[in-house]
């Protein structure tokens, strides 16, 4: 019973008029936590009540503290009838449970009503006293910190990265309960909000438990999602990366920030040998103890085989349940070939990884004893896993075994991943998958399909261990030196038929209303849990096929339409350094690497030329990290898919692929030529309306084509921009009743290490026709022009040297085939074919092909960004470093109605494409005052809410940057002074001049714009800068003006609190002014330093209206709702004492309307990290780094 929660209701303001007669309100407040409720007195006849209540005290379990929100209801007292609710505030008290985060919640919260929106504000104080119960980690996981940020949070150092944690809980959706028919919409909405709040709390607590089991103290890259499955229920699921973080002690933070109590687990870890290679991923058994592993596996694998793209689109009807679910997976690993595996760093890595698999056993100590390995105490696990040489010896032994399975090809190196005999079976199994996937040794693998494997697996339940371990990381950027090599994107999708989740309430013996689905699924094979298991397994096998042992930038998503659900997962196959997986001293690592290298030389038959140098390479890679991550992780002769390899254009020693696709952020150390840009592939495909299984089949059949075409589009657009790599790739597939939407977004860049991309060549099939040829040559010319223009626009001028490179001839595969074989991995062609030489260095598009015409069309319709604008969907734009502090986060939503239902695919495509393009154009226009600026982290979400509706939502941040990057020192110092002046100014204004609409904004960058005018410039820039010049002049005048008005305003409006206005100081508005809270989807705010993380913000809101027209139609309704959501997020952050939200994300925006009934409903789910930042200029400790944006905090993390 380790917690005492205290709440105090101070005052209210701006309350709505509840009594028409007096135009006033008799308000009182109910404070509820769990089943305990307190009430304040009624404060009669006021719209600005001052309750100033006593402290309401709740004595509760910390488990409840984690799960339950504090619920505050404001009501209007009515003597004769029932009291009217004004609205509610839910306060998540989780941040108070970690003593490193906030200590008190205090501030004004908007009072929210699901029907009326925000109705006034209430001032609340909340505190928690946690008793120091040593056993408190038993049921709860207080103290585990959660971060949405997908990198190591800025003021922490990663001691260790433990790996993947996931959990899901399900329940019935109150909206679909029978009682919903008789209760009011408000009651339903509130039930839903409350339930989801509870479920999120529970989910977080459970994940926290897993983290503690793994020995971590934090979850980074925490991603929580809701699946509103309608009739069949509500799923809340979350994934994240367990870490052990250490607070960086820096001069500006009070030393007390490091709390011994909280960091204790991490210290244990560090000091105890148990900390040795921690698990890459842990799906600890307790989450689904009842699952029989074998059944799960067979289920998973038999369907995974169809991964083979076209060839493998098989459906398997489930024998037990009849043909209910059809599955389809389409995965593609990118054409990312690799360095011969013999290179140093991967080797030790592997060693670490393998050994690291096992310690996770120890983490399952809390789980039920059904699994054999559970009997291992942590200690024993540790012993057998310590990376001593004997263990390693044994690791090499399985190689022959596995080799036997593959008749024709030499074993890829990862064979050695089987680290103990116990795991051999599972390894061989995935090996088989791999063979199938890579299209090699097809004969052998075919025979080994489901049947015999299943049998094997059933016998070996302990292989479940392997299954539970997912070496996945939700991180997208890493401490330097952590990410060694990147293989390419791995993704998997699966189409499922939703069916009613068995009423969990029945037979539930726990008093707790929420259900952990896992505990009920023993005999229910079709579980959400198992679905994800399958997908993850598939992802894992894809990663293996790419010669990688880990998946980074991992994420999962769903799209639901009626009873069909598409599950998607994607990530980037990678090889990671062991540095953060154990607290090994460097020498251990190197000893290992040497040993491992020798193992490889003996075990592998490849006879790589580079082999000899392995040992030394370990250092080499660390020293030139700029290109290392591009080097292929897989084996050149045994590539999992066809790709062109060349020697790295930076170091000339390792092989790199010609194109690299990833889901992660650009590593900070990466060498990039020029700037990057947002690249989107958009696709819309019609689908016949169908029901149930038919529908699922139809979708399954369409998916691979959709994905394939998206990929082709991406590739073409990449080439058109003369770029060779994609980062932050996110492919979203949305399913509607009669169409499928696909949207792929990524940031294209030119990686210096990769070869320069060839052009695009158009070929016609009937060259005899002259007009036709002319047509073609016109098109060709257009394309060539665009490429040239783009090169200039993105400043891509790779050194010419690059072209002549390397002694060995670069294999040039036949382009045509490459174009269509981008799904490489799943294609069943034999790899040798692709090594045949074709001398063209261009991508060929045959325009006889209607698809190609479409492709070309979409290529040419993509409007370039207006001058002064850049855009990307990664955190920051490669090639831009000098951000100013001006930033503007925004959300934009558009719904498009297709009036003509009988659209062709092309028509639909055009509509969809235009929709996205226009949306982008609108954004550029809206934000024109921030120029020069970059739209960062542009996150598109598409949905098909109804038959003829397409919904696109974008959340992004616009950040201004200082255009002139190469300034002489003198000027820089002037600018610095200027900057200082400005920041001072801003502080004076208590508000950064962030908005800048029209002009008042950003004198800094405009001033620099001026300085640039003097220099010789290419025309485009010239134009831009003269524009800036204009703006500057305007800005100058207006700025003066605004400051003047400001000062007069200051006179008029009192400073926050205390100082009252000369006259009627007792008026409510004389109180505090509102704290400015910045919001950004990025993990940092340029020009500032985050000094404290206050906790995770995870909020879910429902808004409904029955007077849509009166609220300004659908746009008015949604506009005010989104504004309200922002306001509530800001209020919560401010109440925690923060001044910004980083890693803000709008994960869900479900909008439904019924204009005929004048009704609409919308659900929004947002998340982020509340932080306190200070301006770097205020710190004065170090001169502001010019590259502040890209500079990682983590240099200290490298300390080893």
């Amino acid at each position, binding site marked *: 019973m380790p917690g005492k929660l205290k709440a105090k209701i101070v005052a209210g303001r701006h309350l709505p008029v509840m009594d028409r007669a007096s135009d006033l309100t008799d308000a009182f407040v109910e404070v509820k936590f769990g089943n305990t409720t307190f009430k304040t007195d009624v404060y009669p006849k006021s719209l600005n009540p001052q309750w100033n209540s006593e402290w309401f005290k709740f004595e509760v379990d910390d488990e409840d503290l984690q799960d339950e929100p504090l619920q505050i209801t404001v009501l209007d007292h009515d003597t004769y009838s029932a009291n009217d609710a004004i609205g509610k505030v839910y306060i998540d008290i989780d941040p108070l449970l970690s003593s490193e985060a906030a200590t008190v919640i205090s501030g004004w919260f*908007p009072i929210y009503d699901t029907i009326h929106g925000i109705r006034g504000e209430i001032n609340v104080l909340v505190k928690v006293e946690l008793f120091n119960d040593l056993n408190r980690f038993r049921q709860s996981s207080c103290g585990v910190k959660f971060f949405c940020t997908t990198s190591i949070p800025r003021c922490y150092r990663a001691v260790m990265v433990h790996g993947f944690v996931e959990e899901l809980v399900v329940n019935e959706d109150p909206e679909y309960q029978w009682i919903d028919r008789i209760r009011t919409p408000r009651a339903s909405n509130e039930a839903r909000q409350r339930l989801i709040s509870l479920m999120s709390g529970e989910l977080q607590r459970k994940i926290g438990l897993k983290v503690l089991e793994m020995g971590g103290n934090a979850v980074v890259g925490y991603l929580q999602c809701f699946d509103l499955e309608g009739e069949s229920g509500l799923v809340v699921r979350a994934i994240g990366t367990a870490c052990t973080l250490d607070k960086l002690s820096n001069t500006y933070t009070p030393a007390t920030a490091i709390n011994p109590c909280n960091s204790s687990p991490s210290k244990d870890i560090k000091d105890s040998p148990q900390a040795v290679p921690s698990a890459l991923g842990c799906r600890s058994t307790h989450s689904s103890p009842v699952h029989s592993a074998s059944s799960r596996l067979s289920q998973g694998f038999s369907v995974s085989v169809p991964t083979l793209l076209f060839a493998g689109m098989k459906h398997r009807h489930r024998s037990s349940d009849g043909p209910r679910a059809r599955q389809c997976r389409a995965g593609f690993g990118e054409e990312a070939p690799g360095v011969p595996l013999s290179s140093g760093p991967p080797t030790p890595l592997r060693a670490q990884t393998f050994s690291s698999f096992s310690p996770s056993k120890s983490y399952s100590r809390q789980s039920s004893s059904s699994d054999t390995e559970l009997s291992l105490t942590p200690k024993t696990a540790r012993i057998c896993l310590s990376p001593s040489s004997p263990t390693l010896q044994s690791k090499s032994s399985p190689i022959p075994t596995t080799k036997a399975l593959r008749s024709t090809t030499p074993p890829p190196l990862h064979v050695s991943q089987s680290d103990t005999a116990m795991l051999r079976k599972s390894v061989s199994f995935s090996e088989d998958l791999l063979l199938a996937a890579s299209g090699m040794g097809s004969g052998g693998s075919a025979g080994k399909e489901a049947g015999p494997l299943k049998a094997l697996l059933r016998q070996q339940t302990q292989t479940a261990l392997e299954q539970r371990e997912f070496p996945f990381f939700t991180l997208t950027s890493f401490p330097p030196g952590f990410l060694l090599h990147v293989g390419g994107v791995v993704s998997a999708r699966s189409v499922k038929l939703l069916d009613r989740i068995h009423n969990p309430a029945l037979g539930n013996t726990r008093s707790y209303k929420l259900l952990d689905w896992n505990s009920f699924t023993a005999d229910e094979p079709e579980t959400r849990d198992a679905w994800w298991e399958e997908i993850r397994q598939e992802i894992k096998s894809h990663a293996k096929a790419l010669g990688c042992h880990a998946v980074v930038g991992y994420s999962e998503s769903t799209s639901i339409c009626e009873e069909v659900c598409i599950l998607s997962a994607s990530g980037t196959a990678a090889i990671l350094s062991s540095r953060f997986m154990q607290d090994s001293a460097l020498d251990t690592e190197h000893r290992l690497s040497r040993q491992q290298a020798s193992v490889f030389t003996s075990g592998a038959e490849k006879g790589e030329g580079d082999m000899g140098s392995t040992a030394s390479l370990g250092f080499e890679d660390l020293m030139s990290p700029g290109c290392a991550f591009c080097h292929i992780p897989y084996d050149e002769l045994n590539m999992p898919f066809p790709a062109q390899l060349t020697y790295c254009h930076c170091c000339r020693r390792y092989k790199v692929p010609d194109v690299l696709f990833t889901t992660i952020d650009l590593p900070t150390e990466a060498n990039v030529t020029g700037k990057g840009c947002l690249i989107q592939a958009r696709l819309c495909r019609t689908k016949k309306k169908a029901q149930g299984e038919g529908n699922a089949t139809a979708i399954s059949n369409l998916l691979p084509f959709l994905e394939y075409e998206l990929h082709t589009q991406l590739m073409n657009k990449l080439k058109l921009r003369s770029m060779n790599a994609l980062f932050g790739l996110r492919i979203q597939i949305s399913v509607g009743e009669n169409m499928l939407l696909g949207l792929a977004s990524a940031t294209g860049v030119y990686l210096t290490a990769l070869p320069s991309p060839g052009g695009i060549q158009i070929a016609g099939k009937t060259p005899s026709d002259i007009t036709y040829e002319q047509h073609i040559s016109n098109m060709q010319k257009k394309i060539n022009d665009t490429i040239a223009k783009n090169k200039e626009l993105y400043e891509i001028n790779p050194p010419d040297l690059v072209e002549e490179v390397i002694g060995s001839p670069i294999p040039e595969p036949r382009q045509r085939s490459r174009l269509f074989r981008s799904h490489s991995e799943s294609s069943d062609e034999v790899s040798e074919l692709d090594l045949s030489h074709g001398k063209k260095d261009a991508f060929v598009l045959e325009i006889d092909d209607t698809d190609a015409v479409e492709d070309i069309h979409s290529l040419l319709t993509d409007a370039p960004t207006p001058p002064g604008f850049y855009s990307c969907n990664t955190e920051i734009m490669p090639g831009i470093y000098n951000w100013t502090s001006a930033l503007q986060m925004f959300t934009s939503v*558009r719904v498009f109605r297709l009036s003509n239902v009988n659209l062709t695919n092309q028509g639909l495509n055009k509509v969809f494409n235009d929709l996205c393009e226009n949306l982008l154009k609108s954004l550029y*226009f809206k934000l024109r005052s921030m120029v020069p600026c970059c739209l960062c982290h542009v996150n598109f979400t598409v949905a098909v809410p109804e038959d003829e509706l397409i919904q696109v939502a974008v959340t992004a941040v616009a950040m201004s940057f200082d255009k002139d990057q190469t300034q002489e020192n003198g000027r820089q110092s002037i600018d610095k002074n200027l900057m200082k002046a400005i920041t001072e100014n801003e502080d004076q204004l208590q*508000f950064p001049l962030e908005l800048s609409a029209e002009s008042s904004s950003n004198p800094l960058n405009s001033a620099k714009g001026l300085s640039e005018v003097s220099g010789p410039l290419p025309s485009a820039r010239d134009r831009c800068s003269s524009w800036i010049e204009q703006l500057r002049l305007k800005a100058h005048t207006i700025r003066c003006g605004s400051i003047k*008005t400001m000062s007069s305003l200051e006179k008029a*409006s009192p400073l926050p609190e205390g100082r009252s206005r000369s006259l009627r100081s007792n008026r409510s*508005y004389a109180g505090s002014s509102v704290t400015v*809270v910045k919001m950004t989807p990025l993990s940092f705010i340029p020009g500032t330093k985050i000094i404290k993380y206050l906790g995770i913000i995870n909020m879910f809101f429902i808004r409904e209206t029955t007077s849509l027209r009166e609220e300004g139609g659908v746009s008015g309704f949604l506009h005010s709702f989104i504004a309200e959501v922002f306001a*509530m997020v800001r209020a919560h952050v401010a109440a925690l004492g923060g001044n910004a939200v980083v890693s803000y994300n709008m994960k869900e925006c479900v909008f439904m309307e019924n204009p005929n009934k004048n009704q609409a409903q919308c659900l929004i789910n947002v998340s982020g990290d509340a932080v306190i930042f200070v301006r770097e200029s205020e710190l004065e400790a170090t001169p502001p780094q010019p590259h502040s944006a890209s500079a990682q905090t983590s240099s200290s993390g490298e300390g080893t």
Partner: protein
Amino acid sequence: MSVELDVFVGNTTIMDKEVYQLWLNGYTVNDAVKVRIEGGVMEECEASAEVLLSDTMDQFRTFQMCERLLQNPAKLANQLLFQIPPDRQAMLIERYYAFDDDVVREVLGKKLSKGTKKDLDDVSAKTGITLKSCRRQFDNFKRVFKVVEELKGPLVENIKQHFLLPDQLARDYAAIVFFANNRFETGKKKLQYLTFQDFAFCAGQLINNWTVGAVDNMVEDMDVDLDKEFLQDLKDLKILITDKDLLDQHKSLVCVALRGKTKVFNEMEANFKNLSRGLVNIAAKLTNTKDVRDFFIDLVEKFIEPCKSDKWTATDVNLYLTHYTNSAHILDTFKHQNVWTRYMGVIKSCILRMYHE
């Protein structure tokens, strides 16, 4: 095929001053788009009409949502819904409360009632300003009036505090409130040549000098009414015209001072008694509400028009009024120096302001 829903919400509320002005001016979205296209934003930013329409609609919606707050500017500063930098807030408020002189000129001194509001379409037709904008302006006048009407303390300060307006604008509103409260006649044909700014200036003079608050800031009284005591005292000034000696003495003093300094000396000398009588009579009658209302018309009829017909320049008027005021102080038998100064100070500056050459 149509865009069904289109919203853009920034963490910091984005507002374009130009669009805001169009909204304030009462334009429809389509008209506003036209104006913007003509303004050349499209070329400047490579935007299409579609983009412009979307942007305009979105901003108009934002303004509409803000309007509720703008009507209570103090709320704007501590509401949570829109995050608007203080300088922007000030701009929004200032522009929302800004008005067209032409419009206010039409309603100046009128009762701010429903009846007057109904006549706004005439005002709109006359001034060429949209009815919507006229209504907003009128509602602003009325709102400000209602709030400060009953408040104690200095009028301008009250307006500044409650509506967070910049000084000049607050003064203008004070003038409007003052005029509306005292119902000064401004609509007569003879007064048509006067602009709102002329009246605002005069109102400022009256507020600063003739109200109770003008004498003593600490008095818990209102600034919107003239100081009754003072108005009573003004009756005493009558002696200047009723006492023949005093009148002659006064005249000769002024003549001595002005001789040779003005081209219209002769006219002045001839008219002195008339003019003096006019001014003193105005003072003496101010105890009647009706005569207060006619204050400006009286000034024009009794002083400005005679001078005009004699072709006095503004300098002449200034010179005359200065000496006219000062000379009275030298009169031994004239005891009401303080009242005289308080009265003539205002009269002089009002006349000078109202004297358009």
